[in-house]
């Protein structure tokens, strides 16, 4: 008892040590706070009250003694107060280590990954029926992550239609990477979240985990143009980050993106000789290019008064699609020796202003550094860069109103943005300005020419 009193202000109070209460029992006790009742910080000092035997059980953890009787109370009191000194008496009776708490899992994430596919059939949370897993202290957070020992609901095995004909980002993991789970018991099926996609045709997409160390080995099946075409063949040996970026909804501005673009185009270029192409399945991939307005107008070499203000967006005849299939028979526009310059030629029977433009407009240059440039005629140089790749489906379609058909030409694999090469552009502007200056007649001698 003495030790607890040692911190009290040994001020005017002449309180006999060890005796809490008013110093001098007068007729009416003073209500003022006695110094003995107040700790050095000024908070109210808790008075020690003998504990009831039942509450002492918590101290059993530390003490092996049975519920102490009153004679033992002094020692406990001392101990309790000793502990309580540092915590303002609060610690009395509390075990320093939390007793094992029985935790039960509940809620939507209770079952861990196994529950992911059965959201439609969710009934009462099964945690009520599963045996309560006693968790060690501090492991409560690992309930969802670790499947060891946790019993999940037994799933009826869904129809195992492997969804091979969908946008599947497959990963080839080495054996080491596979997560090992404990053996299922009680008819429980353990399903890896990453493989949820394969469970059923309607199963949701599983988010892919970032596996940085395995980047190079990853095989990603890029959005397949046609369901049955195994385009993954082309990408087997390459490391590609783009699809990963898509799913992570992040804009990856790393240089690797350009390299992949380069590889992309080189890929297609290199595979031109591939002979084993199924007739029904189109192996070519569709790319989307975004040009700045206005798209340069192109006319055949021998041009007369063909419309020059033609831009891409003007409509042409609806019957074009049918005509194109006969293009081989029809005289191509503007052949070398044709003086008439009838770029419209025999193709337009209707009175249309828009001729069919068909021909080579330039070339696409791919450099080792990864830059891709488009060199169009008339000195137009454009940079081609990869655009933000959307993670959703994009289809290129052809609408045939004549035949009332909507043809799906395929899925757009990649998007590119084409912008003018700045150096060339500025140079051209400079030249143009100079030309204008020279062309401008100086008729006023008062004009000061600035150089």
């Amino acid at each position, binding site marked *: 008892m003495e030790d607890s009193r040692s911190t009290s202000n040994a001020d005017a109070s002449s309180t006999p040590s060890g005796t809490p209460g008013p110093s001098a029992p007068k007729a009416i006790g003073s209500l003022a706070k006695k110094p003995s009742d107040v700790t050095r910080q000024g908070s109210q000092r808790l008075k020690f009250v003998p504990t009831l035997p039942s509450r002492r059980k918590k101290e059993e953890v530390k003490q092996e003694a049975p519920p102490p009787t009153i004679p033992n109370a002094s020692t406990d009191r001392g101990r309790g107060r000793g502990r309580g000194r540092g915590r303002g008496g609060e610690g009395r009776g509390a075990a320093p280590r939390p007793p094992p708490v029985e935790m039960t899992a509940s809620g939507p994430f209770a079952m861990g990954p196994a529950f992911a596919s059965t959201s439609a*059939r969710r009934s009462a949370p099964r945690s009520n029926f599963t045996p309560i897993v006693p968790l060690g202290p501090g492991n409560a957070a690992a309930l969802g992550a670790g499947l060891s020992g946790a019993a999940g609901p037994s799933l009826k095995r*869904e129809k195992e239609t492997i*969804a091979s*004909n969908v946008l599947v980002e497959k990963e080839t993991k080495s054996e080491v990477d596979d997560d090992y789970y404990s053996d299922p018991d009680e008819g429980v099926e353990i399903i890896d979240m990453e493989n949820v996609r394969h469970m059923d*045709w309607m199963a949701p997409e599983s988010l892919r985990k970032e596996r940085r160390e395995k980047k190079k080995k990853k095989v990603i099946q890029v959005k397949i*143009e046609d*369901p049955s075409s195994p385009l993954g063949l082309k990408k087997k040996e390459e490391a590609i980050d783009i699809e990963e970026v898509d799913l992570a909804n992040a804009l990856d501005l790393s240089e690797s993106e350009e390299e992949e673009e*380069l590889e992309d*185009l080189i890929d297609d*270029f290199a595979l031109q000789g591939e002979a084993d192409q199924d007739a*029904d399945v*189109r192996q*070519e*991939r569709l*790319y989307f290019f*975004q040009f*700045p*307005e*206005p*798209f*340069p*107008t*192109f*006319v*055949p*070499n021998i*041009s007369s008064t063909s419309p020059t203000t033609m831009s*891409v*967006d003007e*409509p042409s005849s609806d019957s074009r*699609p049918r*005509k*194109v*299939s006969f*293009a081989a028979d029809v005289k191509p526009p503007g052949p070398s020796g044709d003086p008439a310059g009838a770029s419209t030629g025999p193709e337009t029977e209707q009175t249309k202003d828009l001729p069919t*433009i*068909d021909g*080579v*407009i330039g*070339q696409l240059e791919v450099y*080792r550094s990864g*830059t891709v440039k488009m060199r169009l*005629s*008339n*000195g137009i140089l454009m940079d081609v860069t990869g655009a933000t790749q*959307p993670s959703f*489906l*994009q*289809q*290129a*379609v052809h*609408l*045939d*109103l004549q035949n009332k*058909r*909507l043809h*799906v030409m395929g899925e*757009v694999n990649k998007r590119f943005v084409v912008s003018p090469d700045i150096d060339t*552009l500025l140079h*051209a502007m400079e030249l143009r300005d100079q030309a204008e200056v020279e062309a401008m007649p100086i008729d006023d001698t008062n004009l000061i020419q600035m150089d």
Partner: protein
Amino acid sequence: MDNDELISVLPIHYSNSLSPNVHIHQFPLLSRPLQTPPAAAVSGKRIRARIKPITRRLEIHVPVDPRPEVWNGERSKELGAARQEDDREKNQDVGKMKQMEGEEPRLIEVRMRSELIPQEGAYMLGVVRNGQLHMQPISETHQFRPTLTYLDIMSRKSRRSRGDAGSDEDSDDGPPPDPDEPPPVQTASKKEKKSLEVKEVQVSARRAADDKGNLQGGLSAVRREMLLAIRAEEDEVWQDLDFCDGETAEGHEVFEAVFSRNEEHLECKSDITAFLKGIKGL
């Protein structure tokens, strides 16, 4: 850039033979190819499409997977009935829908409705073949999202069932609910439980709002325009289209049309400076 080695050169072919019919369709909420679920394909359902050519609105109907593990048949009956009613109201009945006699209409397909997205710049579709890049211009970009307008019918039905079904309410549903005036709908839902009189209040409140709109002049003109546009669209008749997947013969033919036939070099009439000059306001 000096040590930048040129790896390959692909000539670029450009052809606008297929324009203006080349479109890009985007499905922002979808990440897998658009196809009939195998379970539905077994029963002969396939993807259908229809278009309103003047308003440039497309709809693509994708059949759903009707397996009991992933589809609630009971609910589909309710929703199917609601959709049928919605169709009738908005004059977009799918006339070809065959129903078994005596059976309630079910929801059998997801309807994706298109929105025309303005294009920034000129869009081109490029295909590489034989070491050449062939380009075709893209005229329109559409984004498709599922339409759930039948849910409005359902909520209306449930509200109706609480109070007395009156013909007044049908007439109220003519113009679409005004975004600036949410209160009428809410107060109706609150007060419907009480009595029939409340509905009359609702009607008058709307009329008052219309009067207010008229007084303001310009605001109501815009709104009226919008309403007219919506009306005009609803009045236009759908034209059915065959939805041809990539593997059909016609599709193949069209795809081949993308590639230009001409090897000749075209001359360019515009200059690179046109890009800068073409920027409006600069």
